[in-house]
């Protein structure tokens, strides 16, 4: 369920996805980093200080 994927000797041994949550979690990280970069360059007014 987590990072445990197919093991040596399994029929499905290949170099594919080691776990659903692992992949989704890492994709979220990529999206998050992208969002941060986008936020940095975006024009904002924000609160008046």
């Amino acid at each position, binding site marked *: 369920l*987590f990072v445990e994927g197919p093991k040596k000797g399994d029929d499905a041994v290949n170099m594919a996805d080691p776990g659903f*949550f692992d992949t989704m*979690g*890492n994709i979220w990280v990529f999206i998050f980093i992208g969002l941060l970069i986008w936020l*940095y360059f975006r024009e*904002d007014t*924000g*609160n008046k*200080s």
Partner: protein
Amino acid sequence: MLLIQWLMLRPTTKGTVMAKNPVLILSLILTGGVAGWGIVDTAGLAAFASTIVGFMFTSRGWFIMLSATFFVFLCLGLAFSRYGKIKLGKDDDEPEFSTISWITMLFAAGMGVGLLYFGSAEPLFHFMMLRPHLSNPESAQHALFATNFHWGLHAWAIYAITGLIIAYFSFRKDQPTLISAPIRCVFGDRGWPRWVGGFSDLMAITAIAIGVGGSIAMGVFQVQAGVAALFNLENPGVILSVTIFVLLVVSFLLPLTVDLGKGMALLSNTAMAIAGGLMLFVIITGPTHYIMSAIVGGLGDYLSRVLPHGFKTFTFFDETIGNWFQSWTLTYMVWWLAWSPFVGVFIARISKGRTIKEYILGVVLVPTMFSIVWFGVFGSIGFYGAMVIDVDILEVVRTNIDTTTFFVLDHLPFAKLTIAATVLAAFLFVVTSVVSAAFVLSMFSSKGDADPTVKTKLMWGVILGALGLVMIFSNSIDAVKSIIALGALPFVYIVLLISVCLLKALKKETML
């Protein structure tokens, strides 16, 4: 959805906090829930924390390391960029404390029960793990480097960035002292920034509460081991733990009901003086040339390897090294994140009026140097015991890591006195940490109110005590580490987000 709606409620006034402050209510429910779960089923909570943290570390360890290293480079970049000249305060604000007092206070921030606990234990633990693979001298060298890496630049860069953001937005932009303040200041107070801000405050509170709960447990383990060493108790047992815990709770709940101000500073300074004195005592009464050589060698090794090591994730190594990397390096990085809002508020408060360059160089370099000297002293005397005079110190680390510091002191003159002083220092460090943490938690959960009510502070005192009790029940430093990491993991995203807020605000300011 209900949670988001709650987080979007408007700020409230003092006195009606419970009725209208969703962050306070949610944070009490969350941390109280964790404490309750831990008291009912300690093993279940520890196992849950360990599973989730293990998964997160395996899956996103690279991201945690990359983030920690990013904070180091961000600190260096900010210090030496044009932003370095910007003041943490208004342009005409002058530093509140002299540079010497400021540096002394930074030393104090760097001190804590963790250093007393891990001083000899951590380098020796790494040494023990490396010994089957490397020669003794190489193992000692790598073990000292790993320890310095965990307590050095990366730790202090995380603290420095969080403190810098708090200081910049509080003193220069007149925002409340909240983790959400930079988000609301830069992106406005409507839509997503509002609930992301509320969520950030909630996560900051959770991370601090669970982190300080862990510190209470570590303090109790340390004091218990010291009392056992003083009175030659073989199996101290639960009664001693609970007695120490009750004494601790009384000691930190009392100061929360009255404003002790300078009294707390006195307690903190006493603990710091004892720790500093202990270090000098070990240098003088221990093998002085061996210790001094280890400090200098450790410093050189650290300087030459620290930056590339920040990118090391041990991907191609076996499970033993992988587990070691997770349970030490990654755990420490999230541990610093857990403590960063709390330590950040302290270093921000004492740094008003300093320039960003001054602030970063002071906050990052001074405590890092202190850590290198500290571990040089306590690590090398541990190696001396293991390699030169061949005492059973590695067996102590393996079987009862809590007692390592006392085992070292027991092999030096005036052992009873130094062990009693260490016990006292550990006790005082925990009391002052919990009192300060209860204050910061109350401030964060009262919309940045600098004078939170006694009731709120007491509530946090009780929650911190309960969390500490849970971790004492777990009776394992590894369980404590996992529970802290669980509370701190979401905070890595928040520190990155508020770093972007700082960069945007600085860019805007210099463009005007």
